[in-house]
């Protein structure tokens, strides 16, 4: 089943690479000590690469949103309110118990349903809530002169920074879980191959 068109695959691989660069450089900036000047990639290099990768990620995100508006790919992100929690729990139950008992996948992948309910919620939260907040707060830190100076008596830059780091952290955790759940296909590597070839094997979940 051909599920991942070329633009999605290109967007995805670029997004993945940029995310890794941003995580490594972000940690380098946040946790550099006075003594360990070259912690991970070192502060000065980290600033340059973080800014560069962030601009590319923002442009890549615009491509993602535009692509989802103008192609049929956007429909996979529509969450139906009906049976929302029941479906979510049923998917969670499958991951925690069902799959070990040999039960069938409650929401097998079809051309109309690329994501299971749990994937949908996490992808929407990641791509339509966390990433925009990450980008907005990132712009605030890149151009501190446009950031509000005080917000309810607290520095606007500190709040922007906390928002940026928190979103960056959640998205890093998301990435770890995302990579792990991608090993849950028919074979641990088959979903990764699917994202390279564009074809989803029918016995994958």
């Amino acid at each position: 089943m051909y599920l991942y068109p070329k633009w999605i695959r290109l967007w995805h691989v670029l997004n993945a690479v940029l995310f890794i660069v941003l995580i490594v450089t972000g940690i380098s900036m946040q946790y550099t000590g006075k003594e360990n000047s070259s912690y991970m990639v070192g502060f000065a290099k980290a600033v340059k690469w973080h800014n560069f990768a962030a601009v590319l990620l923002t442009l890549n995100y615009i491509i993602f949103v535009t692509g989802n508006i103008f192609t049929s790919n956007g429909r996979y992100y529509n969450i139906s309110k009906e049976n929302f929690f029941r479906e979510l729990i049923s998917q969670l139950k499958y991951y925690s118990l069902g799959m070990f008992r040999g039960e069938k996948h409650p929401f097998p992948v079809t051309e109309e349903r690329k994501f299971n309910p749990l994937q949908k919620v996490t992808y929407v939260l990641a791509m339509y809530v966390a990433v925009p907040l990450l980008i907005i707060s990132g712009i605030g830190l890149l151009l501190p002169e446009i950031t509000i100076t005080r917000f309810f008596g607290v520095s606007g830059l500190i709040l922007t920074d906390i928002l940026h780091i928190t979103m960056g952290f959640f998205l890093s955790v998301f990435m770890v879980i995302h990579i792990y759940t991608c090993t849950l296909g028919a074979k641990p590597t088959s979903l990764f191959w699917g994202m390279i070839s564009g074809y989803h094997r029918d016995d994958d979940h």
Partner: protein
Amino acid sequence: MKLSIFRILFIFSLVSISSAASSAGFRFKTEGSKVQDAISFVSPYAEDNQRCFKCHGQEKYEYTNATLGRQVRALMCSERIVRKAEFYQSNHKSFSCTDCHSSEYVNFPHPGELRMEQKFNCIDCHGGDEKFAQYHFEEIDSEYRQSTHFKLESDGFTCWKCHNPHSYKITVRNSENLKETIAYDNAICLNCHSDFSKFQLLTDKAEMNIIQKHDWLPNQSVHFANVRCIECHTKVNNNIPVSHQIRPKGEAVKLCNECHSKNSLLMASLYKFESKEQRRDGFFNGIILNGSYVIGANRNEYLNLLSLVIFAGVIVVIVIHIIFRIRKSKKTK
């Protein structure tokens, strides 16, 4: 779903813009009230000093020339001008002019030999005095003597080049607005280092461009507005309030993580006067009230711990999941 997300983003940006506008207004009010406080000071020597300010308070002065038998208007030498408003806001505002200058200056025309008058230096009054002991003026003086200013220009350079006795006011210890302090202190350096006509009075060096020299510094304007020149250009000395040992340019701080780290250099310099209570749990709390923010130095210990716990939790769940998968695949084999 998509529509509502865009709506949230739109509201978020509106809130940001309106907060920016209100915060700007707030700052304006604070500055206004400070000016009001400063001009309410009335010197006990106001009347005596006024005799000097009459001529020395502005660019031109008038006197009766007995030889010509008429009023003469003349230009005051810029070196001899003392702005009254600045003086009465300065540290020395409660002084009479004749506390430091000869009382013979009350006579006009001033006697010619008074021009040879030896001027006081900071240490002449502040040194060896119990009242000023806490500020360690002697150590400041010895630091200054090791500074590049003194080493390069020991004849031309004096305390007064940076601390004009007629206008200088201590800001960093008393100011509630750190930005104001930074701007005030940096203006002292820029007074010569960005004005070649003044700079060349003390050196034969070619004209320099501060902006160009600091090209390597990311977000240059933000750095200039948020830290003082001396943060990078002096050697920190914890015994004195403000370090006075200006280092040669090759020894200036250039490593980002000197400031952008947990034990930030700024803790020993710019943020030195924040109370210890404000500084508990590291950098974060001390600076949160200031509106300052330093990447890598502003760390919240609670958030750090929470993030480690969440991350470890995720890894544990994944490992348990893998173990169950391996057991299941062994069973099916």
